[in-house]
């Protein structure tokens, strides 16, 4: 994790394939899968367990991309998404994770500025492809 960046400025510092990604997810299995999948692909992964944890991480470090679960125990992922767009503009790619049958939440997320979405259960190669595509924007 690269510390020291000020809040509100997201500098795209990654070169090539390696990106600093923050995964905000409360389910430990999903977290482990995300960590493993993304780090195997060469990315630098940090995890946060909920909304407040996520906010802290975003404030402390800077990331090239955020994976955000919409079903977090201590708050609404959509609110956090709104705040991310407010603080980091459109430069920080966000991919939202949702459960099944949550089309409304996904639509809302896309309206609020999410770049892409993945529903759980998901396929790791598909997730990686979407991450790559978001980063390549």
């Amino acid at each position: 994790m690269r510390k020291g960046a000020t809040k509100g400025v997201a500098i795209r510092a990654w070169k090539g394939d390696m990106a600093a990604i923050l995964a905000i997810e409360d389910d430990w299995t999903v977290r482990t899968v995300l960590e493993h999948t993304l780090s195997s692909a060469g990315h630098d992964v940090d995890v946060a367990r909920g909304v407040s944890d996520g906010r802290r991480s975003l404030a402390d470090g800077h990331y090239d991309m955020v994976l955000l679960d919409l079903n977090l125990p201590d708050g609404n992922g959509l609110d956090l998404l709104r705040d991310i767009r407010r603080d980091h503009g459109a430069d920080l790619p966000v991919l939202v994770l949702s459960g099944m049958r949550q089309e409304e939440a996904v639509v809302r997320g896309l309206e609020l500025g999410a770049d892409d979405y993945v529903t759980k259960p998901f396929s790791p190669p598909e997730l990686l492809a979407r991450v790559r595509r978001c980063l390549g924007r």
Partner: protein
Amino acid sequence: MWRRYGDVAFAAVFAIAISLEAIPLCYLTWTLAARLFGNAGGARLGSVLLGAVGSAAAALILVTTYVLSYQHVSAQHERVRVEQRKAWVTRWLSVLEGSQPEPTGTLEPEGVQALLALRETLRGSESSRIAEILERHGAVRQLERSAGHGRLGGRLDAIVALSNARIPSALPTLVNGVYDSNQLICVASARGAARTLARVEDLFDRDRGAAALARAMEAQELPYGIIEEVVVLAEDAATSLIAVLLLHDRPRAPTVRAAIDGVGRLKLLIFAEEVVPFLSHPDDEVRAAALRAVSRLGFLPESSHGVVIAALTDEVDFIRIHAAAAARLLPRPHALSLLSDRLGDRSWWVRRAAADALVSLGPAGLAQLGRVVHEHPDRFARDIAEQALRDQMPNLVRAVVG
């Protein structure tokens, strides 16, 4: 919320502690009774009390020692388990990728747990491979055995594990579990069977499985809420399940209600015609469910208009409420005037439902509400129409302002 181990030991410790207390207490009472009826024995009383005190002290030491050790052991155990699970999940992911070989022989419990967790999380070919691995290592058979007998806690854990695993071959075991006399096992098995059914690909097997599950649920007379959950959990297999539940020979009211609600909730238009006859069912709840479903599906054939119109003036409150929601499917002029009438209903909830239904009719409905505010003779009708219009303000503002 709870730790699921050590409960048997704890119950045993408490049972011993109770005996250590109860037996001397009974003896004490008996001694006192004897004393009252003539037998002198002050000294005896003292020694009995002393024994009781010693016994109680032993009970206290026993319980306290157990609690403190449990605290310590469980904290350790959990730290280790978290690390183990993470290691297993990472290992399985590597196996699925192909960068590590699959472990041989029987799997450790943590390994099985990790696989089950992954089965929930992953989709597609990875998920199918996990199912294969579970079967190959005999984990599924093991779980089926545990689900069938043993103490309640262990059985429930196994059923939940099978529920997560969703292995089609385990469906018969789970359906069998529904017939169990213990309510907890029965309900957990029903849910597990529904989740498993969702993954059965072969349509013929799916229909057969659905029929078996439906039979079991009927035999056990499960409550409405559980059947509703089962229907929802069955996901794509819900159609098979609902078909069996609705077309049953003489279905119970809760079953039919749950099936109809499932139709409405999942918007299964293929059952729209099957639902319509239930609009005239003798059971009030079933009729209400049918009205709800019809409203959600947006399907009301002309032949049923009369039934809905009649339901608007039914004696039972909740029938009128759902009839109001369904009334919006009537031909526009009828809908507007009938719903306006309902705005003057004696029940506040019916009035609210009628107002909501008018709002859902769009500009025509809003215009009608406006007319009601000015012209309706009933004061309550005018009030609720006004409130309904007011409630629409945030939407209007959002639509305009964005």
